């Protein structure tokens, strides 16, 4: 009977915990520091001054004793080159202060910071502005999330070759294919999920997201309300979790109804504020059910063409072509049967940044309503105003808050598991409290110290991260996904060693409960992705190992009970 009461209490508490909004503080993200990497040599990326000639390239290469080559033929205009060097430190020293050299960086260093090798990335000020590299450096890249681009269609141009792209459908009469006959839709799709880190072209916010092309706009860029509404309904039926609407006009009841239905299904609907340059947000961006997006330029101020006013929820980079490289650069069709890398500007371009960011959060296991709240709450700004809404999109901050929220849930879950099993085993209070403290710290890390003024060191990182994330800290990103690490192996090993002795048994029991909490949380949210295992098998793996870890914890608590009673 007591066990049932405890289980009920735990169940209610966990349910309440998951219903909480994200209230936790933003986690600090490491500032990029440009220093020579630890590796002695490798691929060096050299950014020469624009207009540099092949002869310049050769002379620079001679200085560092390597054959420098343009990163990509299309990158020649940007004078971005790379070559293998024996020593990073020596090469960087040789080029320091050279008048033809703007930047020298190692490919390894850039990758570690989440910087991709796409040669035109340096022109994408917009990706830097929203903190997209913070997403790329981890696993938060939109995997498994379908984003519907309800637009002029999407064509698989060269820099969408590696992107997951569904067949989609057309709702424009007389047009059977969802391919793009205009250029707008492909550009928008590129901002969301351009193939990234492929050594080609440019990047997208959520490169692992799946794009669902929904053609509702003609080659002229216009679509009737009925086509749009049908396209939105289709996107929902096809499993889209995010719908991007880089379009607008007057109010339409049929479009509004379709969007309401999408929202009722938990779909995040993002829409452009409009390009009137005046007060007054267009529809559907002005609807309560959509995230209305205004546009900023490279300097962070509202772009001159952007509409503003009631209905703007957030601002995002839409470009300002009055400035050099001030537009949003993506790969799209050129209208002559080919493709090109084109700078566009508009709230149409701002909107997919938010859609991509939503996809990133959803891929981290955050429910849609919480994802929307996080995006708006972490936007940079001082309260709502009609130009920027809640502020400017910041994906890095949104991910920081997401990580904090996950850690909070795990922290509480680990402690609850420990309290439950030690209560059931009727151990002494000291054992219960120690086990719970260890379990919470193992499951969530001492995450609330992330904003404390601690020294920047590996030890600090280990302190604030959950135990199962330690390989990512010590070895490198991704290593925490080794399946044996995401299992009950460690609790079993510690259980039969430290758990055998009274003084260290609470540590072993707490570790088992903490690991169990993290594995269960990972199974429920999809935030743990053990290598080699398909999604369904990964969930089972995590759940079974979580259960095994709990059994280990129960066994240790039982052993403690016997020892305590035996000693009386």
């Amino acid at each position, binding site marked *: 009977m007591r066990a049932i009461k405890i289980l009920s209490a735990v169940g209610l508490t966990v349910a309440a915990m998951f219903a909480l909004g994200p209230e936790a503080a933003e986690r600090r993200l490491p500032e990029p520091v440009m220093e020579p990497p630890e590796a002695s040599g490798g691929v060096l990326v050299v950014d020469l001054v624009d207009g540099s000639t092949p002869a310049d390239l050769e002379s620079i290469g001679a200085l560092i004793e390597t054959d420098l080559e343009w990163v990509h033929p299309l990158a020649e205009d940007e004078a971005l080159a790379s070559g293998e060097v024996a020593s990073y430190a020596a090469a960087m020293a040789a080029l320091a202060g050279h008048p033809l050299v703007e930047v020298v960086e190692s490919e390894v260093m850039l990758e570690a910071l989440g910087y991709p090798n796409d040669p035109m990335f340096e022109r994408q000020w917009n990706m830097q502005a929203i903190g997209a590299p913070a997403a790329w450096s981890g696993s938060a890249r939109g995997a498994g999330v379908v984003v519907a681009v309800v637009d002029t269609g999407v064509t698989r141009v060269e820099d969408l070759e590696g992107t997951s792209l569904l067949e989609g459908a057309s709702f424009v009469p007389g047009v059977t294919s969802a391919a793009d006959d205009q250029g707008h839709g492909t550009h928008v799709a590129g901002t969301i999920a351009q193939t990234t880190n492929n050594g080609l072209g440019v990047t997208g916010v959520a490169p692992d997201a799946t794009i669902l092309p929904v053609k509702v706009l003609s080659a002229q860029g216009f679509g009737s309300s009925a086509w749009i509404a049908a396209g939105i309904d289709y996107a929902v039926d096809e499993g889209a979790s995010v719908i991007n609407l880089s379009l607008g*006009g007057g109010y*339409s009841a049929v479009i509004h109804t379709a969007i309401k239905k999408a929202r009722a299904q938990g779909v995040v609907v993002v829409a452009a504020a409009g390009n*009137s340059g005046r007060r007054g947000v267009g529809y559907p961006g002005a609807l309560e059910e959509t995230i209305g997006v205004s546009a900023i330029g490279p300097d962070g101020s509202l772009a001159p063409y952007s509409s503003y006013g009631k209905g703007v929820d957030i601002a995002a980079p839409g470009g300002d072509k009055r400035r050099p490289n001030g537009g949003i650069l993506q790969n799209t069709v050129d209208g002559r049967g080919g493709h090109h890398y084109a700078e566009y500007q508009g709230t149409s371009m701002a909107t997919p940044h938010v859609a991509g960011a939503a996809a990133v959060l959803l891929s981290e296991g955050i429910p849609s309503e919480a994802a929307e709240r996080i995006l708006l709450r972490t936007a940079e700004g001082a309260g709502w105003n009609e130009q920027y809404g809640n502020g400017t999109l910041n994906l890095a901050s949104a991910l920081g808050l997401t990580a904090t929220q996950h850690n909070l849930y795990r922290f509480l879950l680990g402690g609850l598991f420990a309290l439950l099993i030690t209560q059931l085993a009727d151990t002494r209070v000291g054992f219960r409290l120690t086990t719970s403290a260890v379990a919470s710290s193992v499951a969530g890390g001492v995450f609330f110290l992330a904003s404390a003024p601690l020294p920047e060191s590996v030890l600090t990182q280990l302190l604030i991260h959950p135990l199962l994330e330690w390989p990512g800290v010590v070895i490198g990103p991704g290593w925490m996904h080794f399946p044996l690490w995401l299992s009950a192996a460690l609790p079993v090993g510690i259980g039969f060693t430290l758990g055998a002795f009274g003084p260290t048994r609470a540590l072993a029991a707490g570790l088992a409960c903490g690991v169990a909490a993290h594995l269960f949380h990972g199974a429920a949210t999809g935030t743990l992705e053990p290598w080699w295992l398909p999604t369904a098998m990964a969930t089972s793996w995590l759940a079974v190992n979580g259960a095994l870890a709990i059994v280990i914890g129960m066994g240790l608590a039982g052993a403690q009970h016997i020892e305590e009673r035996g000693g009386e």
Partner: protein
Amino acid sequence: MTWTGVLQRVDVGPGAWRLVLGDGSTLGLYGAVPAELNEKRVVVRGQVLDGVGIGMVGGALVQVESVEAC
């Protein structure tokens, strides 16, 4: 229907056309618009559309049938 105003090419997305009417209100134009009439005073003949577009330059959307300088 016909409208008289100043034709403007707006650099948003792949480009859009706007007609600025005498009272300062605007129309978003879709269809064939002669580029050489940019910034000229013109008469636009066309139909008001029920729908949305990529231009979003403000005001009602019009499917252009003809544009003539005046």
